[in-house]
């Protein structure tokens, strides 16, 4: 695969890898295309993402996207985090090979799931795509 240096960096040294005990929201999604799985854990304080961790079962692009996406939403408000698109993640990684674009979708979807899980736990209404 023709991965950018940025992808290789985030893949080899993933940021925010792991899980959060007593997290405020967890999102787990599977990739319809290749069957891979990503899990995002959120710690939320004052509507902001105080901490975030991920676990990923997937390819280099999926792991790098997880790492980059968690970096990008850390410290952001939930609304800001919700708006993070897979395209923005891919761009931040200096691009992904076309066949690997779907891997960055995992990150976007897992973040949405995690935020909705948080909202649900709070008894709030979940958000739509």
């Amino acid at each position, binding site marked *: 695969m023709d991965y950018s240096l940025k992808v290789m960096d985030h*893949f*080899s040294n993933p940021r925010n890898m792991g899980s959060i005990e007593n997290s405020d929201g967890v999102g787990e999604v599977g990739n319809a295309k*290749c*069957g*891979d799985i990503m899990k995002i854990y959120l710690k939320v304080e004052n509507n902001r993402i105080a901490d975030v961790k991920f676990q990923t*079962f997937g390819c280099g692009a999926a*792991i790098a996207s997880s790492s980059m996406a968690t970096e990008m939403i850390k410290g952001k408000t939930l609304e800001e985090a919700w708006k993070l698109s897979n395209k923005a993640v891919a761009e931040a990684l200096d691009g992904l090979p076309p066949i690997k674009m779907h891997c960055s979708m995992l990150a976007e979807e897992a973040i949405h799931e995690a935020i909705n899980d948080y909202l649900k736990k709070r008894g709030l209404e979940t958000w739509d795509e």
Partner: protein
Amino acid sequence: MDNSATTPVRKEVVEEMLPYMTENFGNPSSIYEIGKISKHAIDKARKKVADALGSEENEIYFTSGGTESDNWAIKGIAFANRSKGKHIITSSIEHHAVLHTCAWLEGQGFEVTYLPVDKYGIVSPEEVKKAIRDDTILISIMLANNEIGTIQPVEEIGKIAKESRIYFHTDAVQAIGHVPIDVNKMNIDLLSLSGHKFEGPKGCGALYIQKGTKIDTFLHGGAQERKRRAGTENVPAIVGLGKAIELATAEIEESNKTLLELRGRLVKGLLKIPKAHLNGHPTKRLANNVNITFEYIEGESLLLLLNAKGIFASTGSACNSFSLEPSHVLTACGVPHEIVHGSLRLSLGRMNSEQDVDRVLEAVPEIVQKLRNMSPLTPKEYRTS
């Protein structure tokens, strides 16, 4: 350690090829002589291929590679024997050059039976027998599989085909230089091979066609290859293929002895990793092939981390394929979907040493652990952080 994908061209082979690319061409005024020299060179190469297969020289046809050989064998037999029948038998673990050709023929009105394999990837001769119909015209079963190295009972299948007077083709692309071949003893009517899999050149292969076989031409045009395969002959590549198969065949025994030792060491070492499973048959496999699945992790990321350590390998993971489909071979062997993802193929070559094996055995456990720590699927007891 990815010698099943492609091998570098062997030094002795390059040396044989070069004159046909450079010097001999440098002197246009001697072109007529070159014509003769080239013809003799091709004949010599053809003899070497025939010797490696136990066939006659005039049963060997040079092609552009394993893919063309497979396409020619299957389409050529199908179209030439259409009036006799429209049924083809193959297995579910063939190379795509066979499977996609069969699929295309299905679109042309042919019918194809894709035989299942057991958990080791072996086709049962009994199943072949049962699948034969009155209108079966071709059986195509590979000699050795490119992913899991499983060696098929080709001789038995050939015998069944012969008894039923059905043509038998075998894709031997992975077998050359590893499995001794005798087309007559094995009852093979058509056999495909490809130069770059045994340290010969890319873009050159051969098809063995037993005398008297009714087969259509596939590449139509000029009168080359006794009017059966058109196209200006790729002289340097043909010469290289001849040299490479000569060397590879002469060294089978010696090479297999070394490879078996290395393979044993590699398999033993890798299976020490918990939740690791060997794919394919424990003994009926190519001496150079190791295919192992590590649960909870995905193969492409495993490859990338290995690459970073200078180790090149291959995987059946969906993520590493253009189609995003997991390996059809491992799937056919009944390996569950999630587990196919974590497969790793290492294929040893003549240049690999014990040190190389040890380097792999040092690198893999660490990398597998790193990825398991990252994976949401890994149970607690297999995590270290």
